[in-house]
């Protein structure tokens, strides 16, 4: 198991605010977090940047629910379950990037803060590894163990491609959003990696362990730097790029039009094409500006690399081509020229892909290498005695997720910024990536029609400036309420207020960063804003601010359950079907995530189920496929329905349960998928288990369904109010397959509108939500409390059904 319960009294090792007698002080709260629990290190020292990796354990407060003993007669007013705060230990990977100039300062800091590491070795890679070997060994008392650079690079690349959604992007210079993040293809192989260091290596990667350097070129970053320094007398790489970004290459290069007077029409070569790089400097006697020469050099090298990349991509029949190395390192100007070149040479058939965490690949790989070596090979004799083996850490056995709270995001440090200026201002420039080990291995929902083109999010806020503006404002506005609720959720902890303020500061800072750099964590979406908030809340030990509210709501709703079922049973079949849908939608109005609702709920706790029904829009709804659904219900029952549930309380108990009860009565098996960990007031898997037990105790249909395994509860693997169908618990995927699931129901704004609104499934699907945000309602052409009821049957599905009818006259 990934978590081990820790005694509640287990204390965090106090981090002394150690002040350093150095000219540069490290912001100890931000950099090298959890160093006291660091277990294993790896380091990648490049020409100018050092990247350090370590693995640590993080203690988190988690909210646990536990059912009271209800064998005794239920007493009035006693809550259904108890909530307790417990400590859990989770695994986290930390990656830090800083300039080589700070390496000694950083090593000292690590030495002073390292408490209980068991490791004796530090894995090292990169060209500078041997240069700093002695220093590292002396300072850290760890043996430096060198690893092959390319092996580390590829390992790291595979790791980020597999574990970080939106890792890869296409760079488009003049677009509204310069970064177009790519959906991670479920199968990341094969691909071509063009690593542009001082030279260029072209590596074909076919599987986790199979890769080959298929080619390379000596004209790379070192050529740009070396030749550039000779030509312009500019010493630094970044300064050279800055010069280049201000230059005009046309004064130095001989263009097609310089030779032809225009274009070379018969070959389709336009006049602006470079015929001969630096061709004009051979014949013209005039002086050339540094900027122009730097620009010409940049074009020359980028084009050359792009051309070679294309030739290799064609030879090996590959279309996924990733670029990395210090020549790229997030520099817009080099990404642009490479992109341009690839586009030119492949006529748009191949896109240049860049990686958000490209700079970390080497250190991630070195780290993984160390972890693998530590994992003992399976001994044939140990068959059946797995309990004997020490719990080891193999990162490839788990899914990992980027922790938005602890990661700096793309371009947190502008590559164009002069490091000298940064030093003078007294700050220590660094960039961080933190990845949390997820409890479960995440996979695609097997029912996605085309996993490679599935995009969870409905609106990409990085491309939609108006929507971005609105949602950033919206989340900023809601912050006060979130802080208030977080404090209220921990009445027994006096320092909660202080922690909540830290949370506020952190999340506000994230929002501000995202305003400036919407691309920081991949495509900006409502989902990513929500997830970032959850990560920040967890960071400050507010694992479940809604726990008490959920508890109260669940209690109230349970009391009405039997009454609700009874009134439904009095209705005719057709009336009942409509009442069930209406009840489900009304239940969904109870959502503390939406401000419009939480305002009403907060001021008027009596706001009831009936009132919610009255708030609902009358038919025809904004999106209304109810008639088709009703027709479908008149047909044969579904084999198995997978239901992604949303909120606690009225939603789950009075909305979802009656609905699935009807499905069960029709002979349909039901799988309820709920969040693995808390998010807003969404019902979690552990809460749902208790609720299901309680309902089963009152209702024979549910009881027998549970007993006969026709009603199953599974974890979604998610802890988000939204839903990414490409990252779901592996077990869920197994259940879906085993049971031949033929209906997927997705409920609520977060899961059915912010995400998955356009998701195409290979079976029937129902997407239901009430729009509880007036801006969004407006966007979709409706109004507040408009209803979306989307019933979809995949086109292929229809034809296959017809195909099964033999002899049908056409």
């Amino acid at each position: 198991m990934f978590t081990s319960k820790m005694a509640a009294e287990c204390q965090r090792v106090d981090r002394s605010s150690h002040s350093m007698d150095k000219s540069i002080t490290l912001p100890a709260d931000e950099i090298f977090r959890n160093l006291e629990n660091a277990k294993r290190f790896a380091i990648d020292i490049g020409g100018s940047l050092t990247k350090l990796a370590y693995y640590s354990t993080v203690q988190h407060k988690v909210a646990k629910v536990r059912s009271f003993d209800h064998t005794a007669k239920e007493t009035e007013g006693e809550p259904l379950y108890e909530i307790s705060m417990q400590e859990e230990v989770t695994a986290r990977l930390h990656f830090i990037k800083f300039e080589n100039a700070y390496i000694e300062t950083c090593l000292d800091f690590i030495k002073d803060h390292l408490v209980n590491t068991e490791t004796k070795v530090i894995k090292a890679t990169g060209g500078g590894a041997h240069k700093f070997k002695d220093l590292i060994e002396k300072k850290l008392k760890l043996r430096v163990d060198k690893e092959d650079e390319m092996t580390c690079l590829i390992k790291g690349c595979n790791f980020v491609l597999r574990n970080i959604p939106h890792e890869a992007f296409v760079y488009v210079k003049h677009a509204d959003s310069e970064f177009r993040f790519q959906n991670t293809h479920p199968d990341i192989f094969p691909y071509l990696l063009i690593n542009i260091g001082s030279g260029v290596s072209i590596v074909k990667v076919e599987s986790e362990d199979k890769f080959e350097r298929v080619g390379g070129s000596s004209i790379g970053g070192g050529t740009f730097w070396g030749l550039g320094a000779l030509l312009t007398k500019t010493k630094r790489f970044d300064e050279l790029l800055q010069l280049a970004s201000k230059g005009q290459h046309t004064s130095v290069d001989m263009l097609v039009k310089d030779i032809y007077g225009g274009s070379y029409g018969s070959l389709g070569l336009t006049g602006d094409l470079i015929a001969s790089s630096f061709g004009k400097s051979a014949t013209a006697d005039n002086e050339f500006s540094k900027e122009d020469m730097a620009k010409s050099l940049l074009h020359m090298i980028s084009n050359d690399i792009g051309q070679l990349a294309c030739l290799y991509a064609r030879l090996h029949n590959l279309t996924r081509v990733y670029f990395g190395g210090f020549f790229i390192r997030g520099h817009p100007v080099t990404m642009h020229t490479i992109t341009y070149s690839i586009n030119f040479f492949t006529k748009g058939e191949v896109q240049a892909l860049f990686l958000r965490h490209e700079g970390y690949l080497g250190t991630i790989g070195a780290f993984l290498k160390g972890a693998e070596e530590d994992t003992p090979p399976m001994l044939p004799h140990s068959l059946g005695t797995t309990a004997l083996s020490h719990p080891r850490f193999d990162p490839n056995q788990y899914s990992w997720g980027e922790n938005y709270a602890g990661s700096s995001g793309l371009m947190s440090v502008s590559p164009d910024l002069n490091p000298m200026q940064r030093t003078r201002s007294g700050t220590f420039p660094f960039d961080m990536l933190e990845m949390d080990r997820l409890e479960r291995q995440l996979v695609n929902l097997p029912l996605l029609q085309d996993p490679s083109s599935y995009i969870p999010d409905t609106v990409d806020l990085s491309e939609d400036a108006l929507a971005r503006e609105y949602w950033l404002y919206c989340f900023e506005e809601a912050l006060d309420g979130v802080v208030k609720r977080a404090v209220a959720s921990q009445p027994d902890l006096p320092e909660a207020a202080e922690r909540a303020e830290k949370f506020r500061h952190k999340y506000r800072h994230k929002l501000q960063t995202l305003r400036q750099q919407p691309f920081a964590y991949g495509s900006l979406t409502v989902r990513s804003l929500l997830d970032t908030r959850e990560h920040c809340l967890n960071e400050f030990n507010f694992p479940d601010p809604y726990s008490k509210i959920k508890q109260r709501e669940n209690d109230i709703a349970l009391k009405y359950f039997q009454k609700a079922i009874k009134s439904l049973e009095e209705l005719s079949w057709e009336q009942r079907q409509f009442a069930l849908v209406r009840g489900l939608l009304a239940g969904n109005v109870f959502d503390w995530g939406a401000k419009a609702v939480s305002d009403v709920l907060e001021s008027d706790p009596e706001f009831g189920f009936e009132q919610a029904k009255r708030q609902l829009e009358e038919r025809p709804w904004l999106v209304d496929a109810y008639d088709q659904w009703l027709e479908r219900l008149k047909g044969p029952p579904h084999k198995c329905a997978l239901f992604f549930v949303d909120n606690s309380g009225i939603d789950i108990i009075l909305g979802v349960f009656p609905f699935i009860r009807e499905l069960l009565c029709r002979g349909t098996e039901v799988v309820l998928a709920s969040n693995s960990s808390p998010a807003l007031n969404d019902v979690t898997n552990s809460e749902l288990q208790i609720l299901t037990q309680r309902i089963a105790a009152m209702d024979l249909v549910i009881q027998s369904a549970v007993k006969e395994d026709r009603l199953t509860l599974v974890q979604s693997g998610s802890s988000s109010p939204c839903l990414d169908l490409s990252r779901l618990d592996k077990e869920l995927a197994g259940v879906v397959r085993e049971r031949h699931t033929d209906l997927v129901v997705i409920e609520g704004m977060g899961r059915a509108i912010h995400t998955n609104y356009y998701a195409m499934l290979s079976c029937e699907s129902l997407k239901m939500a009430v729009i509880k945000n007036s801006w969004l309602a407006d966007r979709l052409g409706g109004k507040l409390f408009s209803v979306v009821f989307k019933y979809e049957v995949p086109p292929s599905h229809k034809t296959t059904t017809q195909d099964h009818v033999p002899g049908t006259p056409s």
Partner: protein
Amino acid sequence: SFIYCTFPWFGMDIGGTLVKLVYFEPKDITAEEEQEEVENLKSIRRYLTSNVAYGKTGVRDVHLELRNLSMCGRTGNLHFIRFPTQAMHRFIQMGSDKNFSSLHTTLCATGGGAYKFENDFRTMADLELLKLDELDCLIHGLLYVDSVSFNGQPECYFFENPSDTQNSVKTPCSLADPFPMLLVNIGSGVSILAVYSKDHYKRVTGTSLGGGTFLGLCCLLTGCETFEEALDMASRGDSSNVDKLVKDIYGGDYERFGLQGSAVASSFGHMMSKEKRDSISKEDLARAMLVTITNNIGSIARMCAVNEKIERVVFVGNFLRINTVSTKLLAYAMDFWSKGQLKALFLEHEGYFGAVGALLELLKSPEEA
């Protein structure tokens, strides 16, 4: 049986850096003809054939002259002349001064300059150019020169023992059955063609890193002014002081990837260091520039050959003139990286095929044209 073609016979290829001119000097002029020959035609012939240099920058490559050549029913010598494209206006002015337009000949021109300078020819010298496609001319000219042979010797050669650039030997050979071939034309820039027959070819790709880049960057880095100067410096330099080799990074071979320690890992990579920049010689810089450009062309040509499934790679263009460093290096690169699969071939008249092709167009019968 031949359509009479008025003298003078010229073919011209106006490139980005150099103008290549071929001139057919008839040696079978009868006394009658001699008498009828107008004075300015005579003076052009005398001027071109009695000099080896024209003005400050024009040069006749005497060693390339094709003697006793039979063309279009006439016998004579084909002369090969070049001058910088920068001198084009002076050349046109000369044509005007010599009243060239009165000779009623067609001036066949190819290369980008045929388009760029067309209007200048018209307005300055009252001359109409017959503009011809440069790749057509290149291929036709190449096949023609190869077919007539270089004064009895083969036009084509390769390097015996290419893997040892110190001791590889230039060896003449025949280009019989030349198709398919990958034709790599290295002028200011580089064009790469896959040629399947005389009239069936395609331009595979090109690169802007060509002869112009070598000379341009050499001029900027060393202050030299001519190709000859740059090559001379390069011949005396050592590129390993400038380039970072695999062994500079890995201490030896990079065995994981089968890279030899002596392979260049990063062209100009040593120049990232200020100390090394301050102490580097012009000769070393020139050599590194030459090696960098040559290897890059070799690398792209090789990839194209593999992608197009062509084993014969023919290198032409004026970048290879008096440039054995590059020819040997290209021969080595083709051989080494393809494990002997690819063969590099070179031609004696390097950069003149376009001009020859243009001349051939002039001599075509009207029906043919």
